[in-house]
């Protein structure tokens, strides 16, 4: 990565919004509970569809107040790339951590966003505080994060952070892989029994952007909505399959689950499989071909040649 201009978050936001370079700015603000932040979506003075008008002093004060509320620190857990679909075809500036930047790359590869509409503000990140365990550690996904510095950005709002060495496979995953099928089934059953099918995991996932998810299809209905864990299993297994080679491991699904369903090891397993089989890491390089979205005449499998 060539040197990218390091800027002050608020100064940049103010400039982008007041000059009309972007219509929408997606960042973070402190939320009402300890250790939590919420997305802060600011519409510029020139944004369409909103009451704010240029040369309206009250709107200008409101804009200034919102820009002042922008923050970035180790509480900023949401993957904001997930919000881009709400602002399609608008000029948007967005704050992304390392993991979130990989989601951005994924969205670019899959033609869900247009690079020319985006100003990407990279936020080097050492990991997000795990608000469930006050003490306080960073989330497991962050401990195992291979990309603390954004892989794609137009500006950065901090100096690059050191990238810790990581084992190829975590001891936790190794243990799960070595465990007996009965043990793995028991674990899966237990996790799935906690799920209430609120779909927060899906709705927080930048890679889950289907206009009609299979879980919402009613003609035919693929997934039931009862409290039989089989329904949650069906939903999560299908969603996992759809994320093969696409999940970047940002952990948004795990952090946002109101029932603390731990999808992490399943996602990790999926990603490490893709890496092992195809040597591919999702969301690292916009020019790369995602393995499950490409076809080659030299494929090693005969059935597809």
């Amino acid at each position, binding site marked *: 990565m060539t040197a990218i201009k390091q800027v002050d978050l608020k100064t940049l936001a103010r400039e982008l919004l007041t000059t009309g370079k972007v219509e929408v700015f997606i960042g973070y603000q402190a*939320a*009402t*509970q300890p250790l*939590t*932040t*919420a*997305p*802060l*979506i600011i519409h510029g003075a020139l944004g369409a*569809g*909103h*009451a704010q008008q240029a040369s309206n002093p009250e709107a200008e004060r409101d804009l200034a107040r919102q820009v002042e509320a922008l923050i970035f620190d180790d509480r900023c857990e*949401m993957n904001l790339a*997930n*919000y881009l679909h*709400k602002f399609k075809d608008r000029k948007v500036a967005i704050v992304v951590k390392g993991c979130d930047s990989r989601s951005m790359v994924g969205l670019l590869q899959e033609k869900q966003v247009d690079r020319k509409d985006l100003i990407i503000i990279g936020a080097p990140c050492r990991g997000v505080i795990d608000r469930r365990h006050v003490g306080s550690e960073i989330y497991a996904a962050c401990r195992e994060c291979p990309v603390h510095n954004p892989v794609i950005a137009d500006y950065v709002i901090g100096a690059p952070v050191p990238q810790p060495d990581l084992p190829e496979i975590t001891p936790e995953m190794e243990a799960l892989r070595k465990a007996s099928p009965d043990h793995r089934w028991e674990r899966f059953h*237990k996790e799935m029994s*906690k799920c*209430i*099918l*609120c*779909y*927060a995991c*899906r*709705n*927080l996932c930048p890679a889950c952007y289907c206009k*009609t998810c299979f879980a*919402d299809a*009613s003609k035919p*209905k693929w997934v*039931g*909505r*009862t*409290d*039989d864990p089989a329904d949650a299993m069906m939903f999560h297994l299908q969603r996992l399959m759809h994320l093969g080679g696409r999940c970047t491991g940002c952990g948004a699904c795990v*952090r*946002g*689950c*109101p*029932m*603390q369903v731990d999808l992490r090891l399943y996602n990790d397993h999926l990603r490490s499989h893709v890496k092992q089989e195809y040597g591919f890491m999702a969301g690292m390089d916009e020019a790369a071909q995602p393995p499950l979205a490409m076809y080659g005449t030299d494929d090693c499998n005969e059935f597809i040649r």
Partner: protein
Amino acid sequence: MTKEIRIIPLTDMPAFVGALMQGRKVLAPTRNDDGLCVFAWLSAPEQADWTCGIPRVPPKQALLPRTEVFFRYHREKGKETVSPPPPPEPQAVLGLHPCDVQAVKVLDAVFSAEPSPDQPYLERRAVTTLIGRGFSEDEPLVFCRELGIDPMDNRDCDAFLVPLAANRMALEILTDKGAALKPAYERFPPAGAEDRAAIAEARKLSQARSTPPLDMAAIQRNLETIFNSDLWNRIHEPCVGCGACAFLCPTCHCFDIQEETRGLDGARVRVWDTCQFDLFTRHASGHNPRTSQKERSRQRIMHKFSYGVDRFHIPFCVGCGRCIAACPAHNDVRQILKEIQDLAKAEKP
């Protein structure tokens, strides 16, 4: 006759809960393997956890199960047999915060409304005993006081637990259903004058701590005028449109009716649904009157604080704070309500 009150030391609560479990299912606050407090059906009396404040999962599953079988059927050539589910078993919900009791009142109002009272709900409700629990301290995120609900109020309960000094609970018996718990509580001593005075004092202290209530009339009035307000953009934009808030809300009661089939057997079931989902209002034609999250987020607030109040004279929110705790985007309904209330003030001539 003075109200019957028994004194139960916390160390004896498992004995009380165990006796309650004789002949009835008991739903109570308990910690799951992750340490998360949830209302769940007890399989052992020790599972009831008195350190839980407001459990993440509300008690509504006692009256509106996540999956409720209306009937089962079996198809064979030219012949269908339909069998009703077994009648609901007697059950008790133990340890309801007064705001959760108010939530049961909301469900009662909705499911008993003419012209189509909901029989499965009412049958279940009829065999349900509500044992509330007073809280002498305000739980985090709970804003029920602002909605006029006192955390020590025992109204609408069959029995009610009041925390007392020296690790004891007072059990107030309030209705015939409460009195029917006699085999569970008769082994415990009646409250003396001193304990009765302590209970009265705890209630007085709680009332003295009341916070200024939200102006619910203003909120309702103003909601009628802001259907097309820019406010809904600010509310829906951070919302990811999941169902966490609704599924974990003690009053949200919208449902879907689906068929669960396996081979020639099947069941018609009622499952939880929510206005936050696109599928909720999608017509068979494919048309959807609520096209985006903006309409859906608005519906949630409107139903709770305008339509519900219009029809049933009771807000469909009890201030338990579960949606605030569960929201992955950290939307806070308290902020939304304040904003709507203050809009009303600002717009007054």
